[in-house]
């Protein structure tokens, strides 16, 4: 698989349920980030997790990172219709800073009211 592959590619759930998306990557990283993209809009940063962290929370978001498996997951709890969007992970390839982020293919999340 390519650097930054999310799965599933698409996910539909009922409002109120939890949504889990996964990301796998190939190179070493300093940090991994998750972004959201609403249709036709720019990407919005959600959360950044550093390579020495295993879990991070922000509101209804929970991100885990397993550097031994080169994978991360994003959990959105108690989903809302407004969470409908595409979600991307992005890695820095081990380089200092975000100068060259590599984005995944994204998970298209649909929340059914």
């Amino acid at each position, binding site marked *: 698989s390519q650097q*930054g592959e999310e799965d599933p590619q698409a996910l539909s759930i009922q409002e109120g349920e939890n949504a889990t998306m996964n990301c796998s990557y190939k190179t070493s990283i*300093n*940090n991994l*980030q998750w*972004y959201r993209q609403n249709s*036709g*809009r*720019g*990407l*919005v*940063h959600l959360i*950044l997790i550093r390579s020495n962290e295993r879990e991070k929370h922000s509101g209804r978001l929970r991100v885990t990172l397993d550097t031994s498996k080169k994978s991360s997951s994003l959990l959105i709890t108690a989903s809302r219709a407004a969470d409908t969007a595409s979600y*991307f992970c*992005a890695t820095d390839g081990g380089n*200092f*800073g*975000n*100068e*060259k*982020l*590599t*984005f*995944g*293919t*994204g998970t298209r999340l649909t929340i059914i009211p």
Partner: protein
Amino acid sequence: EPEVTQTPSHQVTQMGQEVILRCVPISNHLYFYWYRQILGQKVEFLVSFYNNEISEKSEIFDDQFSVERPDGSNFTLKIRSTKLEDSAMYFCASSLRGDSPLHFGNGTRLTVT
């Protein structure tokens, strides 16, 4: 909350023509980026810019592309002779530091006919 703004939102041009895509990054940010997203594909890194010079560029960013920060607020991407395959959404982004999250604009949809 400060935003990255991009103009125009949609640009249609004929093959071989020059286009300039404009961006106003967040005012106190020091790092600037261009990414692009071909319809249905990944978000791809083009170039990063810091201290008035390119800090990194991808293979996509060939001699047809150039960036400029002509004054204290604007950041532009020029494509000298557009090709059909340049059709994509072009996103400008900025960050406060090299390792802080990116703030994206809403993009310019470039259509080359």
